[in-house]
């Protein structure tokens, strides 16, 4: 399936709720509102054969915390990226792990590193941060390694 064809179909079905940008025939970026994530994901699962969950990227943007879900499609070069931005200071996004179990680990990791909360996640405990690790989020922009080490009482150099 072509990115431009899929982009037209998505715009027909969802109108302004899904603003699509096809960067090339194999990369489609779809910007969504947080409550538009489930309907679009359900539609994609029904209409795109071979769609699977690849991974997600969380990043600290100026307007909020962005979560990009990357969905590759088997047997085609197409990768669909669903972009959701949650406003700070209390970023919350519906959890995709309810729909597809492959998203469970990466959502736990994003909660650890950027501090975005996934509503409805089945097991929302830590994955990559040690239990003793303080409650800071290393991928936030205001995180500073030297300051962090000073706060927990370590010298900045080994």
């Amino acid at each position, binding site marked *: 399936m072509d990115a431009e064809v899929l982009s037209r179909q998505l715009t027909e079905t969802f109108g302004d709720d899904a603003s699509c940008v096809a960067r090339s025939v194999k990369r489609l970026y779809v910007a969504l509102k947080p409550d538009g994530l489930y309907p679009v994901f359900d539609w994609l699962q029904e209409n795109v054969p071979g769609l699977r969950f*690849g991974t997600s990227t969380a990043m600290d943007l100026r307007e909020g915390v962005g979560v990009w879900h990357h969905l590759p499609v088997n047997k085609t070069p197409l990768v669909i990226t669903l972009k959701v931005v949650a406003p700070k200071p209390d970023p919350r996004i519906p959890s995709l792990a309810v729909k597809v179990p492959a998203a469970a680990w990466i959502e736990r990791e994003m909660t650890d590193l950027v501090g975005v909360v996934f509503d409805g996640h089945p097991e929302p405990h830590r994955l990559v941060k040690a239990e003793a690790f303080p409650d800071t989020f290393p991928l936030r922009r205001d995180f500073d390694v030297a300051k962090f080490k000073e706060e927990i009482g370590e010298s900045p150099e080994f």
Partner: protein
Amino acid sequence: MKAPSSRRVVQIGPFHPLLEEPVGFALAVEGETVVDVDARMDYIHKGIEILAQQRTYDMLPILLERICGICSVTHSVCFCNAAEDLLGIDIPPRANYIRTIIGELERVHSHLLWVGLAGHFIGYNTVFMWAWKYREPVCDVFEMLTGHRQNSALPMVGGVRRDIPEKYFPEAQKTLDMVEGKVKMLTDAVLDDPVLKARLKGVGVLTPQEVMDWGVVGPTARASGVDTDVRRDEPYAAYGELDWDVCLTENGDVFDKAVVRLLELQESIKILRQCFDNMPKGDLNLGMLHMPRGEGIGRYEAPRGEDIHYLRSNGTNMPERLKVRAPSYTNVASFKASCLGEKISDVTITLAACDPCYSCTERTAVVRGTDDQPERTFGDLVRLSQAETRRVADEMGRPHDLQLT
């Protein structure tokens, strides 16, 4: 993990007597059957995505080689794919062929390593010694061509850094001939061995539906009959011009995962031969490139499956965000599907079957919670063991008591 009564929790890790990295697994067991799996990944978390934001595009492939020792070509080439997707450029053909050669050499030595480890996990140390013995010449070829046994430091955005010397190609071809013969021997030995079949058939099965739900990739998915291979789906490097096949099997058990990898080894050797024979001449790279604002996604078929890198650039010479998703990340998470309902002794090989970048055996057993299970006496254990032997013998159509002659 909390243990309700009648369940025990067996902790695996973080350090185990085998060869790999620290990782913690908690298996909840009832009797000998595993009912739940939980993993702790914090032992190996190093925060390399944040380190990547402090390196320039020129330094990044060198850092990304250090994500995983055995997938060093994977991550650096995958990052270059992402950057080239962002830039929208094609790289010179000779660079494509060099990337293919180092990628396939890595696949050969990685699959041989897995075959050896899998043999080790089921107590078949002959396979371990053989596979690792034949892995050494492949590493030697890698060293001849690139100067290092694993970390080549060759890929860069827009091509490759250095050339590989063509005077070593005949020697490399000779090594490939030798390795191909040995791989065929190993394949025949595995396919024919009744003990391996009894041990591995029907263990750790992943159905195609589970593969899609858990996003499983690579040989682990192909063993379940799910047709996915980035080398064919989105041809990078020189794969679009070469003649090779995607290997598929049907059953999705550990035995089929081994078969897929052994067949892939032969395909890789076929690809390598074509590359050595048709190596084009020409430029190696496009020089230093300015990275504009934008985002790009790179994919690469690692020995373990699809690798995804997401790159976001803000126009400076360092990335704003680099997301790395190694194939093991989804394959390991699928243990929840493949391990449940298995016997605890089969879990080791089931965990190892997706070739995780670490693997584990039981080392420390911590028992928590109350125990409602009946105590088993020595006689009970003997009876259980005899029943199991009888079951296996029936399945294989052999007499219950093998006559020693």
